[in-house]
């Protein structure tokens, strides 16, 4: 069958353990319905389909599978990643302080043009808050990264976060496309050539 989507983005969730990355990926994971079988094995990744500006986008979203406990997240995990969610827990200051270390880790191991976004998770637990929203925003501004506070539990901003990251990746790809086209653009004939190549450029088949 012909491909039925326009883009395919590999996204990663990064951050200290316990910040709720898994819940961002699996919204209802505490539900009694689920068999112990699945919660014991754990989930590797998910495929989700979203639509942005009339384009169909497949997101392949990976959790770190607890590798972060051993600080062993390396190049293999980052390979092919186009977007990274940096997640901390607003009720855990340490997890916030560690975002800087995670950013360094990304700079060492991930592709240099990977899109990043910082998420302050568990914003439904305001009474236990240790990190102010302003602090989160400031960190994001310092690094030039977008920021949102989310609650996986209450489904606040979770979809918006993934849509924002996907949109930023798409914008970056389109810009690259245009740069490539304009460098070779001479006349109408060339424009047609570029157009015909477009579809293969857009299909970012990873894996």
């Amino acid at each position: 069958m012909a491909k039925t989507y326009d883009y395919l983005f590999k996204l990663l969730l990064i951050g200290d353990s316990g910040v709720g990355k898994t819940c961002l990926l699996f919204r209802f994971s505490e539900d009694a319905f689920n068999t112990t079988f699945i919660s014991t094995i754990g989930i590797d990744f998910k495929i989700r389909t979203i639509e942005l500006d009339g384009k169909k986008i497949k997101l392949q979203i990976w959790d770190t599978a607890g590798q972060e406990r051993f600080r062993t997240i390396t190049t293999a995990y980052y390979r092919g990643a186009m977007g990274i969610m940096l997640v901390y827990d607003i009720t855990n200051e340490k997890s916030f302080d560690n975002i800087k270390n995670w950013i360094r880790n990304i700079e060492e191991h991930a592709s240099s043009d990977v899109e990043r976004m910082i998420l302050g998770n568990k914003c439904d637990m305001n009474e236990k808050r240790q990190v102010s929203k302003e602090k989160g925003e400031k960190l994001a501004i310092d690094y030039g990264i977008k920021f949102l506070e989310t609650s996986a539990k209450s489904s606040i901003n979770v979809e918006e976060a993934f849509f924002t990251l996907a949109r930023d990746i798409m914008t970056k790809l389109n810009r690259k496309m245009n740069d490539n086209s304009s460098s070779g653009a001479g006349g109408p004939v060339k424009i047609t050539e570029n157009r015909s190549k477009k579809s293969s450029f857009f299909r970012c088949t990873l894996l």
Partner: protein
Amino acid sequence: PPPAQPLGRNLKAVLCQRCGSRVLLPGAATFAHRELLLPAMRKKAAAAAGGGGDVVREHWLVRDMFSFENVGFTRDVGNVKFLVCADCEAGPIGWHCLDDKDSFYVALERVAHE
């Protein structure tokens, strides 16, 4: 009888039985027979089966991982990954063997059709 077209493609969308999350669009899979053992979906059933599962025989066969609308893949169990609902984690709804990269089975009796 499976809701299949003459060619054996799924006429209806494949949904999660529990939360209605869209797993496959109409026409994204073909009907296939294969005997597979899937761990039970529900806790009670799992207990009744003694931690075993059900033998399922009728499947929607998907050839490209990215043909799925929404789906989750478990970590490896031997050389198998089980498929679950991407939204509510209900499952296993399907089966994928790492030795056959182009085959993803979704058990008919573990999903809804609409």
